[in-house]
């Protein structure tokens, strides 16, 4: 037991020692001493074989025929026939190959590892008497109060009860940006307090925090295998014992011992087994770093095949808050007319009123100083008041009709045009004349049209919007951003029906929603994408979670899936190519044990390096958006 651990801990030294001995042995050969050559290489073989055989034995005890067993038998065989140089080089290459694999594999896992390392390990607990105590993060319970100082990581999900500061939530959202936090604001575990001082009451602790869930999801995802991988795994399980049998048969029929042990070495599955998973790990890691969680190899495969994107709600494409989208002003100067409108609307807490006031604040229109009197709310019509001696009406056409305000022909035209955009309309009359016409709508996110175009360039064929909104709004939004197909005024169950119809038509459908009320569609679609929501339900029902509500992330995820699947295919081709090459070499007689092992190890490194290209996918493109985010 102790011996085994010692070997395990000194594996690198053993590898190095073997290398030195091999060099010495060859030096001896050139110096003319073939005795030194044989003895030194025999010693090298024995030293290097020990850790390999230990592994082989341990595996055999739990009834697993491992690669190590194949190598061990081959080495013993080579030893018996006195091919010490072959046995020494094979064992050395095997150990050195494992070392390189470990080093390069850890690179592909780095993005995920760096994420898990952001997980806080300790918390400063504040007791009722005001004293503080440093505890393990697992010992914090709900409703405990924890203290967070500048530079520390917040250990729980919770609500701020005291203090204020700036946090960086990039671990959770993938978006690096300073966010101001005050009392009553929510904070998340794993986010960094870049400046300030907070006391936080824990609402979720340990494995229940959003961050812990993200980590668990990503860890599970990178080990959730695609169909291809599962197939290869099953294949490998029978493949290794089969190689043993084949080698035996080769020996029985050819009576060529050397050929038989060469088959053992060449039979190591190597690149084939590692090729597909390593691509997925690198791809999933790339996404995780950007707040894109792709749930495993299967999701990756299917996502890459998606040709139809269905967007749920207009809210996915718009900013999600109503604001003034269109302003038509007439005889009165714009600022004066708007100030009057803002003043009268400031008395109302109707959403349209708030949008008007916000707009006035943004434009710095001076409305607050105005004197208002006789204000009245007329139900179903709007508001009336006297402001600085002007009679002001703000509301719908009924209000104007009731007060005998008539629209000119050009104003009628403006109104008709505004109606086609699906906006809510506010008409403002001053002293009996229409002076202002406002279109208030959910504003389309400025980047959406361009990002949807990128989605098409990457292979999306149909872009569909299914929405509960009215037809006019839906048509307008769709036309603005370039959506092919719109179905409006739908109930959630009707959306599911549409998704099914698309699937029956042979399309692979991705459903993009915010995770609220649309779980049935998320689940029905081939790929459910929850956008900009860290809710538990969204994380569970969807296949892809975008932590930030960003179309750029959606495009990146789609491109990443395509690239990852391509990378997997490349790796499988490389692996199969290598096997074919080795077989050919064996038949043609130019491949023997040591050279076979060498080609094997090289091919493993090649597939790992190939997968590593995925780590930096989209790196150049990510830079400008990051700048944009800080500029806001």
């Amino acid at each position, binding site marked *: 037991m102790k011996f085994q651990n010692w070997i395990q801990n000194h594996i690198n030294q053993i590898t190095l020692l073997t290398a030195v001995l091999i060099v010495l042995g060859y030096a001896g050969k050139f110096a003319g001493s073939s005795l030194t050559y044989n003895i030194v290489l025999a010693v090298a073989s024995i030293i290097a074989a020990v850790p390999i055989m230990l592994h082989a034995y341990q*595996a055999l005890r*739990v009834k*697993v025929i491992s690669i190590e067993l194949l190598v061990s038998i081959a080495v013993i065989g080579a030893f018996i026939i006195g091919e010490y140089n072959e046995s020494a080089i094979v064992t050395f290459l095997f150990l050195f190959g*494992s070392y390189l694999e*470990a080093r390069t594999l850890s690179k592909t*896992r780095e993005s995920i590892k760096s994420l898990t390392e952001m997980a806080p390990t300790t918390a400063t607990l504040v007791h009722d008497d005001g004293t503080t105590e440093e505890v393990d993060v697992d010992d914090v319970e709900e409703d405990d109060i924890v203290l967070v100082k500048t530079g520390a990581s917040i250990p729980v999900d919770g609500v701020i009860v005291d203090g204020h500061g700036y946090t960086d939530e990039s671990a959770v959202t993938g978006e690096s940006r300073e966010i101001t936090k005050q009392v009553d604001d929510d904070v998340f575990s794993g986010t960094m307090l870049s400046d300030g001082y907070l006391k936080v009451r824990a609402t979720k602790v340990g494995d229940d925090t959003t961050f812990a869930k993200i980590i668990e999801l990503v*860890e599970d995802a990178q080990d959730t295998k695609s169909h291809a991988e599962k197939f290869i795994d099953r294949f490998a399980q029978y493949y290794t014992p089969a190689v043993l049998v084949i080698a035996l048969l080769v020996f029985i029929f050819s009576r060529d011992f050397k050929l038989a042990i060469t088959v053992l070495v060449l039979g190591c599955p190597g690149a084939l*087994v590692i090729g597909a998973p390593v691509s997925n790990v690198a791809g999933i890691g790339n996404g995780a770093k950007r707040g894109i969680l792709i749930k495993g190899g299967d999701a990756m495969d299917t996502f890459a095949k998606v040709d139809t994107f269905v967007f749920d709600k207009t809210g996915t494409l718009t900013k999600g808050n109503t604001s003034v989208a269109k302003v038509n002003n007439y005889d009165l100067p714009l600022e004066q007319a708007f100030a009057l409108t803002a003043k009268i609307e400031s008395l109302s807490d109707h959403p349209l009123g708030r949008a008007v006031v916000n707009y006035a604040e943004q434009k710095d229109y001076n409305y607050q100083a105005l004197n208002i009197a006789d204000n009245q709310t007329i139900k179903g019509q709007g508001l009336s008041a006297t402001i600085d001696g002007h009679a002001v009406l703000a509301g719908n056409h009924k209000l104007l009709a009731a007060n005998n305000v008539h629209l000119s022909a050009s104003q009628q035209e403006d109104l008709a045009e505004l109606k086609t955009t699906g906006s809510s309309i506010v008409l403002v009359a001053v002293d009996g004349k229409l002076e202002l016409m406002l279109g208030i709508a959910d504003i389309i996110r400025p980047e959406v049209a361009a990002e949807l175009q990128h989605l098409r360039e990457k292979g999306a064929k149909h872009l569909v919007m299914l929405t509960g909104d009215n037809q006019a709004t839906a048509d307008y939004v769709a036309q603005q951003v370039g959506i092919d197909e719109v179905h409006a005024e739908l109930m959630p169950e009707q959306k599911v029906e549409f998704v099914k119809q698309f699937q029956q038509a042979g399309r692979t459908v991705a459903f993009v929603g915010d995770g609220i009320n649309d779980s049935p569609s998320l689940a029905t679609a081939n790929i459910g994408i929850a956008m900009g929501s860290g809710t538990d339900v969204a994380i569970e029902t969807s296949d892809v979670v975008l932590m930030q509500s960003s179309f750029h992330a959606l495009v990146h995820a789609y491109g990443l899936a395509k690239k990852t699947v391509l990378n997997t295919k490349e790796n499988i081709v490389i692996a199969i190519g290598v096997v074919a090459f080795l077989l050919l070499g064996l038949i043609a007689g130019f491949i023997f044990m040591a050279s076979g092992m060498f080609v094997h190890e090289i091919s493993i490194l090649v597939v790992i390096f190939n997968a590593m290209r995925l780590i930096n996918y989209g790196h150049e493109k990510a830079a400008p958006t990051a700048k944009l985010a800080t500029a806001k």
Partner: protein
Amino acid sequence: MTKKAVLQLDALTCPSCMQKIENAVKNHAGVEKVKVLFNAGKVKADFNDEQTSAEDLAAVVTKLGYTVEKIKVKA
């Protein structure tokens, strides 16, 4: 009662290690379900706490020649 153990190992590098660990832990008395996460280097096991403990499972893994860095038990 069934409990969940999560063992954090140091990095696993060969997929056959995974099979080895899985078989060894699965065959240990009192273990109901095992999942080895190759890339995360984690072993997740459901076990009956009357028959075995997370420490026992860690010992099984250690015996195979892998270092167990952290043990976590969930009810």
